[in-house]
């Protein structure tokens, strides 16, 4: 059995869950599936979930990771919640621009801006 490191590190600011990725690569399907499951559990914890995904540790991601983020976004919306992305490095942000997902997700430059962007 492979050593199991939790894929996400979660902290809290008021009613906002701040989620950091523990791996610098969000590439392979097994890893992405694990992250997706952990995100789903966080989203389902309460009604109107507020999640801030902090990408500061992420150096690589794939189209499968984008798919996982889209599924999370859909689930958050279904539960009348809010999802924000922050601290995305320029190389990774390019991937969002090329796929035009920068228009679909709410992306903020800094964690402080991300936290301030949530509405009550």
């Amino acid at each position: 059995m492979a050593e199991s490191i939790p894929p996400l590190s979660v902290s809290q600011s008021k009613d906002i869950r701040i989620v950091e990725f523990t791996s610098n690569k969000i590439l392979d399907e097994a890893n992405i599936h694990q992250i997706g499951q952990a995100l789903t559990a966080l989203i389902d914890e309460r009604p109107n979930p507020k999640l801030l995904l902090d990408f500061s540790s992420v150096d690589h991601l794939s189209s499968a990771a984008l798919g996982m983020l889209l599924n999370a976004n859909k689930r958050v919306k279904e539960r009348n919640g809010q999802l924000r992305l922050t601290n995305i490095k320029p190389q990774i942000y390019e991937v969002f621009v090329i796929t035009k997902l920068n228009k679909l997700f709410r992306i903020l430059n800094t964690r402080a801006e991300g936290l301030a962007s949530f509405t009550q």
Partner: protein
Amino acid sequence: MKLVFDIPSDFDAGRDVQRRVVEQVVLHKFEADSVFAIRLALEEALVNAIKHGNRADPTKKVHIEALITSQRAEILIEDEGPGFNRARIPDPTTHPNLNRPSGRGILLIEAYMTTAKWERGGRRLRMVRDNTPLELPQTKSGTG
């Protein structure tokens, strides 16, 4: 430097190829943006070949050739699947596809490589990345 691999339809084997090709790209002093591009395109191309081409059939192989010089990386990836018609793949950047969780691999390969061509009815991808900065869309952080 030329690397040749014949791997089973297995993601771990694909990842090992990716690692070995990227290792050579780094040794040939490709700049960081090119290394990032090649790693991403290889990830997408190998997943496509294994998952969509060979449908993860363990009896089918993926053939990979990578010719790497300090000027360019030319990579060929061929699966044993039925092939596909590139022109019939929907644009993932337009509605209603923008919300769909899949279908972005080809877009990323074409955006990040200098050239990408599908041959033999879509079973073989030939992609090249020159070791020069590639003009990509403006990276201005937005608020959506």
